[in-house]
């Protein structure tokens, strides 16, 4: 299963959500499908995408928020899973693309390549709705149900450790940041 195919399959479902992604391949691939003002690509601060998503979800409870995370980033902020579980905003969906690799910096294997199970960790952290998915159709249907539901969901999508040829995006960091904030405030629920 390729991450780009999963992103393509859920792209339309993200239309009305505040979307926060991690840096690297995830950001570049979502951007390549078509940038939108409601997409924010956190191009550093590894681990904090889920915390940014939590802040948005708590500050705007009526807005659907989707965080698109990765195994390397989640492993850097595992405590953040316990914070997500503690507040569990029903408008938050946490997708983790697990390619068992720090792909964007050279493909170093992460601990999920040696048996660490992120869905089990999320469950252990106290997130009730979590699962691991291995087909594009399952990722897409689980994402759709998660966005539609009023409970927080964590989805771990096992994907191949391949990404785009480059990570260039014709979008300045600050341009993205100001545009995103404006989009969230303009449509403030």
């Amino acid at each position: 299963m390729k991450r780009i195919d999963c992103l393509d399959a859920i792209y339309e479902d993200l239309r009305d959500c505040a979307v926060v992604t991690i840096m690297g391949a995830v950001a570049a691939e979502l951007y390549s499908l078509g940038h939108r003002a409601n997409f924010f690509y956190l191009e550093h601060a590894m681990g904090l995408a889920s915390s940014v998503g939590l802040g948005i979800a708590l500050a705007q409870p009526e807005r659907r928020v989707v965080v698109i995370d990765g195994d390397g980033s989640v492993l850097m902020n595992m405590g953040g899973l316990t914070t997500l579980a503690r507040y569990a905003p029903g408008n938050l969906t946490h997708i983790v693309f697990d390619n068992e690799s720090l792909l964007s910096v050279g493909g170093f294997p992460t601990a999920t390549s040696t048996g660490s199970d992120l869905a089990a960790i999320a469950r252990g952290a106290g997130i009730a709705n979590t699962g691991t998915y291995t087909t594009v159709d399952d990722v897409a249907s689980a994402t759709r149900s998660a966005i539609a539901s009023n409970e927080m969901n964590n989805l771990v999508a096992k994907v191949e450790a391949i990404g785009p040829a480059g990570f260039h995006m014709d979008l300045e960091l600050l341009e993205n940041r100001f545009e995103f904030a404006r989009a969230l405030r303009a449509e403030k629920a």
Partner: protein
Amino acid sequence: MPVSETSSKVIYDALKATDVGVISALPETWLVHLIRMADDDPAMTLVRLAKEEEGVGVSTGAHFAGVRSAMLMQNHGFLQSINGIVSCSLLYKIPLLMLISDRGHLGEPDPWQTEGGRYTRHVLDALRIVHSELRDQDTAPHQIAEAMTLAHSSLSPVALLLTRDLMWESSR
């Protein structure tokens, strides 16, 4: 408990007066009343963190969503948060009001706090983060209001150090 409940209330009321709607915190002794006040306030969203750096992300999200926030932490929590402050708040120009308990400074009896106290101001200076000390109940509310104003006009982190003189009854 000799942590000043009166000073904590002054600080909490000043945060409310600047429209803070989200407080993220990791408890320590000096912050116990402040965190309880946030927890008891139905109009406040309190986020209890596992690690302080998460609070940088929470405040960033709240800012995007148009809600003002503050972080409550010890100086060791600030030191723990540096990467988030650099690669999120500073990189993306996010207003971030940090209230940092000033442990390990003059009067500190706990040996384990002293090393962190040695570096707090230097690290703030190295990051060019404007900081000020809250020393007494009369001036603290105005300083908090001014810090919030600067954080939003400069789109930057601003730090207020909660001193022993303000937070600890027995030091008065």
